[in-house]
């Protein structure tokens, strides 16, 4: 049964309740009164319940094939598998904006409920900001992007979901990205509330630390899963194309990563107060700006299914957020002035500062490359393009410097370190880097960039492992336990520090996978049954042509054997399918994956006589990208498992952690 009819009334009720919640919270904030503040929170909670009901209404309409709704007709069909019917919720602009709003109101409800009861003013202003953002999205859903628009004539079937989106990755990748984007609303709102209430100590940072980590983790995994989707679905043998939609998720990730590092300085040294507020403002601004870029139609991309008429609604919202946020920071500069002091240029603080410069430079490079075509067109009237060669040229040097810094950072002590001790610390990682370079060169790697990447990966890995060894040695001696137990204790006793190192290790593995692309080989051949082609060390033989059919598609499968040194080592089954509803061909890639290399085969065309165009790739080390993401996820779970602040009031002194292992 379709609940589609409940959708729009639910959105209207949600909008009214959210507006009431904002007004009540504003009353509570201005008068520092707990009564209106609590009433405002309850109104926002009720609004969230109605947004949730609207979400349920759309999902039920999708599953009930309620083609009276334009959205259901546009993005689903009767033949669509049930899992992908759920994916249709975020397959189109209106549905994805509703999904965004469901997450926003849900997270707001949780964050406001968990906010310390003692600080009425901060809680009230946080509610005003979160409720204001929710009101904006509800306005969008009620007017330019209404997912419950009805059709005058109800069709018998829908248009179905874009075949490219019919992939298991699409069930997880977009929700994770949205979760990341939306969860940054919480630290952003707390930061703005801290500015409005002048509670500018470390309270708001500690209160939102887990939200920031949660948002960053979701965004990170979401981005990697997007790469995995591109790799397994798009059939061009790669995972990252610097497409504007990819860039839109990458820009806030870069500034958020800078923020996560920068808050450590504020918490440890009470410095960078202004900077952290600027970073969280930038992160949230870029999250919304990315949505504007990709959904307004101002940029065209492969994700054109998301274009729509909402650009003019987003522009004033973005302007208000950026100008308002910066004006607030400017107005509080006197309160925010911290006694910035570095004991030495050779210190962990300096490394964090360099880290922030590099992340911001990287974010700017990506932003600049993404918007340059718009600027060039506005100035010269000629539409220019900025593609992967530009992004690779400007981003890779910054990325490599960041990897080097990832290894250097843990080796440098807080406050000060003498150069002799520093060189003693980096001696072994440097040797490892040099050894890796020589080994890679002997293995035939000719690219200077790849050699540098391998050297930095080895340097950083050894630096991180050495940190674990130093920490674990203490536990081994004190608790008289074996190495595995000592490593586990090291990780769990100082989760923030060592969990961070595990995340760094994951990043290194991902970079290792990127560096492997320097050795990529690709070949195209048109083969008839029984013919062979050579790619790298493999001989591919077209063995068999298999036809099949499902309710959704006509399948043309080419069975290919891959032989190495005359021995068959893999059998691959790539497909070229015709999706019946969309009348669209779609290739299903076949990949034989392993830590050394991936053999990647895609059929780009099948002739009536059964002969087929085969595009094959050998992608070295790509496996390590996904392994690195898994290691990152492990590190993230360690970081997120750290207990949150026990303090009942925002701004109260945090509990003091006494590290078992002395920080150098």
């Amino acid at each position, binding site marked *: 049964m379709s609940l589609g009819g409940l959708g729009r009334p639910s959105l209207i009720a949600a909008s009214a309740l959210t507006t009431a919640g904002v007004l009540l919270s504003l009353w509570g904030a201005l008068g520092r009164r707990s009564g209106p503040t609590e009433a405002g929170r309850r109104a926002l909670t009720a609004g969230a319940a109605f947004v949730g009901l609207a979400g349920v209404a759309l999902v039920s309409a999708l599953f009930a094939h309620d083609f009276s709704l334009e959205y259901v007709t546009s993005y689903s069909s009767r033949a669509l598998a049930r899992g992908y019917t759920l994916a249709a919720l975020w397959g189109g602009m209106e549905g994805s904006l509703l999904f965004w709003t469901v997450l926003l109101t849900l997270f707001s409800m949780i964050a406001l409920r968990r906010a310390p009861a003692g600080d009425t003013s901060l809680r009230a202003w946080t509610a005003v900001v979160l409720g204001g953002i929710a009101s904006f999205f509800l306005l969008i859903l009620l007017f330019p992007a209404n997912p419950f628009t009805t059709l005058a004539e109800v069709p018998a079937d829908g248009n179905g979901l874009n075949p490219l989106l019919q992939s298991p990755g699409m069930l997880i990748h977009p929700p994770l990205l949205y979760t990341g984007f939306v969860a940054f609303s919480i630290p952003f709102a707390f930061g703005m509330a801290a500015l409005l209430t002048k509670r500018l100590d470390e309270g708001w940072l500690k209160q939102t630390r887990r939200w920031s980590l949660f948002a960053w983790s979701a965004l990170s995994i979401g981005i990697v899963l997007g790469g995995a989707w591109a790799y397994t679905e798009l059939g061009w043998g790669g995972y990252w194309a610097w497409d504007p939609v990819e860039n839109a998720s990458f820009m806030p990730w870069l500034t958020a990563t800078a923020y996560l590092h920068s808050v450590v300085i504020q918490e440890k040294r009470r410095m960078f107060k202004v900077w952290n507020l600027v970073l969280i403002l930038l992160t949230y601004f870029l999250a919304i700006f990315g949505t504007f870029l990709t959904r307004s139609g101002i940029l065209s991309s492969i994700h054109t299914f998301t274009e729509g008429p909402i650009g003019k609604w987003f522009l004033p919202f973005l302007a208000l957020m950026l100008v308002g946020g910066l004006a607030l920071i400017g107005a509080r500069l006197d309160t925010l002035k911290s006694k910035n002091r570095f004991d030495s240029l050779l210190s962990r603080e300096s490394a964090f500062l360099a880290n922030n410069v590099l992340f911001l430079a990287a974010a700017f490079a990506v932003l600049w490359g993404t918007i340059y075509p718009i600027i060039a067109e506005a100035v010269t009237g000629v539409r220019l393009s900025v593609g992967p060669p530009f992004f690779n040229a400007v981003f890779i040097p910054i990325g490599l410097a960041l990897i080097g810094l990832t290894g250097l950072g843990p080796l440098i002590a807080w406050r000060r370190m003498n150069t002799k001790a520093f060189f003693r610390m980096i001696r072994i990682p440097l040797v490892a880097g040099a050894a890796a370079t020589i080994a890679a060169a002997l293995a035939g790697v000719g690219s200077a960039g*790849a050699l540098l990447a391998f050297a930095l990966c080895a340097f950083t890995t050894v630096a991180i492992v050495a940190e674990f060894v130093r920490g674990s040695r203490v536990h081994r001696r004190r608790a008289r336990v074996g190495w595995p137990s000592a490593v586990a204790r090291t990780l769990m006793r100082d989760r923030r520090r060592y969990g961070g190192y595990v995340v760094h290790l994951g990043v290194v593995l991902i970079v290792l996978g990127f560096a492997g692309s320097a050795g990529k080989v690709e070949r195209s051949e048109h083969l008839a049954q029984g013919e062979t082609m050579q790619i790298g060390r493999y001989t591919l033989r077209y063995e068999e042509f298999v036809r099949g059919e499902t309710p959704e598609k006509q399948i043309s499968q080419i069975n290919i054997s891959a032989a190495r040194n005359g021995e068959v080592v893999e059998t691959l089954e790539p497909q070229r399918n015709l999706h019946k509803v969309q009348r669209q061909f779609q290739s299903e890639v076949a990949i034989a994956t392993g830590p050394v290399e991936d053999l990647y085969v895609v059929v780009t065309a099948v002739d009536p006589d059964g002969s087929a165009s085969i595009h094959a790739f050998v992608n070295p080390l790509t496996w390590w990208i996904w392994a690195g993401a898994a290691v990152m996820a492990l590190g993230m779970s360690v970081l997120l498992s750290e207990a949150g602040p026990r303090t009942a009031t925002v701004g109260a002194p945090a509990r003091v952690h006494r590290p078992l292992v002395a920080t150098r």
Partner: protein
Amino acid sequence: MTRLLAALLLVGVLASPAAAAPLGAGPEDVANRMSGEIMSPFCPGVTLHECPSQEATDLRDRIEGWAAAGWSEERIMNELVAQYGDGIRAVPPSDGGGIVAWLLPGVVAVGGALFAGTLARRWTRQRERDRAGEDLEARRSITPEQRRRLAGELAALEARSAGQGRRL
């Protein structure tokens, strides 16, 4: 700074997958290389190499055909620009207004590094001045007897710390 910018760009170019790819001269190598340097007219926002459509495959085959017929890469690019416009180039031009596109990220990175470096130096000097002031204040506010006791206790503390460090 110009040298630094040039070095950064050089590292970028050396590190790019395009630079890393073997510069084969066969028609297929030319088509593979060039399809990474031109935007796809059929999949907005991505290069021809990444575009999965049949039209993209056909255009790639045409490029391979031109290369097989002996066309230089420059002639192929000119033909593509004539057919599809300037927007088919995947990078901004390296002259005129396009130079801004190339240089600005480097300028921002180097400018940011210089600014941060200047701040860090200022904060370090400020800390040294603070410390000097604190020392002077401390010397003024304690008696010689207190100073002797303090020196003794500090030495004992250092000895204890060194012992702990060895145990660590």
